[in-house]
């Protein structure tokens, strides 16, 4: 291949991205070394004081990380399982196949910050329909005001919103699978479950991994849902890292510290995702 051309393809996109990003990222790094806040908006130099603070004096940040891991891993796992299940069902013939396929895509199309307001009224313990219906069974769960249940409610909203993402990718993947392995399997007399375990799942491994990683990246940034539903409450029950960074940054205006938090978060995430990707590859791509 002609080597000059490869740069022609890559560089426009790469350079544009770098050009737009270089100032903001550079500024953020510099910001993290300053004590910029609401009272003193300037780039003074305080060295790594912000970093020291977040490593030694900020239990809240690390607790938020714990919650984030719990929330994102659980929701992505659920989204994967449900999305895969739905994709398998509508892959083959089923009544109203096209209608269901379109319907299952729709939640992903809503703007989280707006849709979550609707969810807030939906789960409102006094005025919402869910508890109204459940009250007939003498149940009145505290969707948004109980420490454990609020996490669950956040998960419900996230699963509703993003399962379509998994669903679409997995369905597209299924539709593109070659027919031969399936013919072979049916000749061998394999039932649906064995076909799935030994044929479908392994063939879908690469795309599963890609989808899970991307979804994990997005899920970690969860902000709008938490913000509208519970503001991180009750107490700090649903406070995630990105929400905490948001509070420090745009509410308390401790921008310098927030920058340090963001960069630390970024690095931890990059490391985590690399590790997770490697694990997933080992788990899903068996014996070839």
């Amino acid at each position, binding site marked *: 291949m002609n080597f000059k051309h490869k740069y022609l393809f890559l560089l426009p996109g790469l350079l544009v991205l770098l050009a737009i990003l270089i100032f903001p990222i550079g500024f953020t790094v510099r910001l993290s070394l300053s004590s910029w806040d609401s009272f003193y908006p300037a780039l003074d130099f305080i060295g790594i004081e912000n970093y020291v603070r977040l490593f030694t004096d900020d239990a809240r940040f690390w607790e938020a990380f714990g919650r984030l891991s719990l929330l994102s891993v659980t929701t992505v796992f659920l989204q994967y399982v449900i999305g895969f*299940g739905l994709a398998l069902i509508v892959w083959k013939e089923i009544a109203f196949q096209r209608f269901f396929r379109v319907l299952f895509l729709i939640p992903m199309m809503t703007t989280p910050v707006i849709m979550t307001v609707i969810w807030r009224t939906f789960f409102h313990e006094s005025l919402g329909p869910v508890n109204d219906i459940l009250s007939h069974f003498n149940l009145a769960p505290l969707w948004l005001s109980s420490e454990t249940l609020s996490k669950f409610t956040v998960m419900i909203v996230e699963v509703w919103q993003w399962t379509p993402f998994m669903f679409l990718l997995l369905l597209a993947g299924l539709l593109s699978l070659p027919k031969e392995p399936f013919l072979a399997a049916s000749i061998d007399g394999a039932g649906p479950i064995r076909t799935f375990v030994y044929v479908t799942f392994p063939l879908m491994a690469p795309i599963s991994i890609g989808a899970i990683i991307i979804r994990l990246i997005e899920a970690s940034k969860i902000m709008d849902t938490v913000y509208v539903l519970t503001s991180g409450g009750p107490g700090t029950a649903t406070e995630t890292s990105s929400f905490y960074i948001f509070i420090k940054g745009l509410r308390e205006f401790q921008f310098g510290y927030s920058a340090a938090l963001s960069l630390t978060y970024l690095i931890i995430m990059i490391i985590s995702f690399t590790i997770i990707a490697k694990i997933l590859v080992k788990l899903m791509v068996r014996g070839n």
Partner: protein
Amino acid sequence: MRVLYTSLKYLAVVLWSTFVIAPFLWAVSTSFKDFQSVTNGATYIPWVDFEPNLEGWRDLWKSPAQGGVDIVEPFFNSVFVTASGSLISIILGTLAAYALSRFTFKAGFIRNGDITFFFISQRIMPPVVLAIPFFIMLGKFSLLDTLAGLIIVYIVLLMPIAVWIMVDFFNKVPVEIDETALIDGCNPLQVFYKVVLPNSIPGIIVAGMFCMIFGWTDFFFSFILTFTEVQLLPVAIVALNSSITPWWSLSAAALVSVAPLVLVAFIVERYLSKGNLSGALK
């Protein structure tokens, strides 16, 4: 056994469909309510449970001086910014993805995989801290409160998605096609747009769809970087989020904001069914 499987399948599908539709139904019902119908406990069906009223929908055309929020202009602004941002991201992203798929790069210890990862890692950073630097940057070029300024920021948000999807797709298109074309006398550029690209339409559609979704639903950047001249839809709708929240107009606005993308969903599904997408993501 067959019967069990089939009924389970339908049960699952119906349950999930109910889950998907539930909040929308609630939004439709709420959009016809007023203060009393909302605060007196949950009510469901218009005319049966409460008196319906069109305030919620009318508020979407009224100006704020009359207690509404005009979403017509923001709606079209969102369409324009999302479409332009997605288009540019796809063009640049597809080119870059092609390169990353077909050619080898090596700069010190940085290889193709690393460059791809760099693109994707742009999605990891929580946007909060980027508020001030982007503000300053756009301010310096007088791009604040402009459509162009927003589009530039959206490129950063959307290009990574385009790159990720297209790299994956290109990797599935056999290299033999390129080689055949080269042998036939095409130069690499022609190979790209005459041979490989036509085979990639489905991938571009999926990438386009994701770009549009992430672009349409962004709130943060349009909130920080615009004031009066340019308003995008999510920001305009959130302007209704007052201490006395008008649930009815919010619900109506939410439904309106979903509508365009539902159209996109239909288009994508068509391609999916026709098997055109089958080549897209193996």
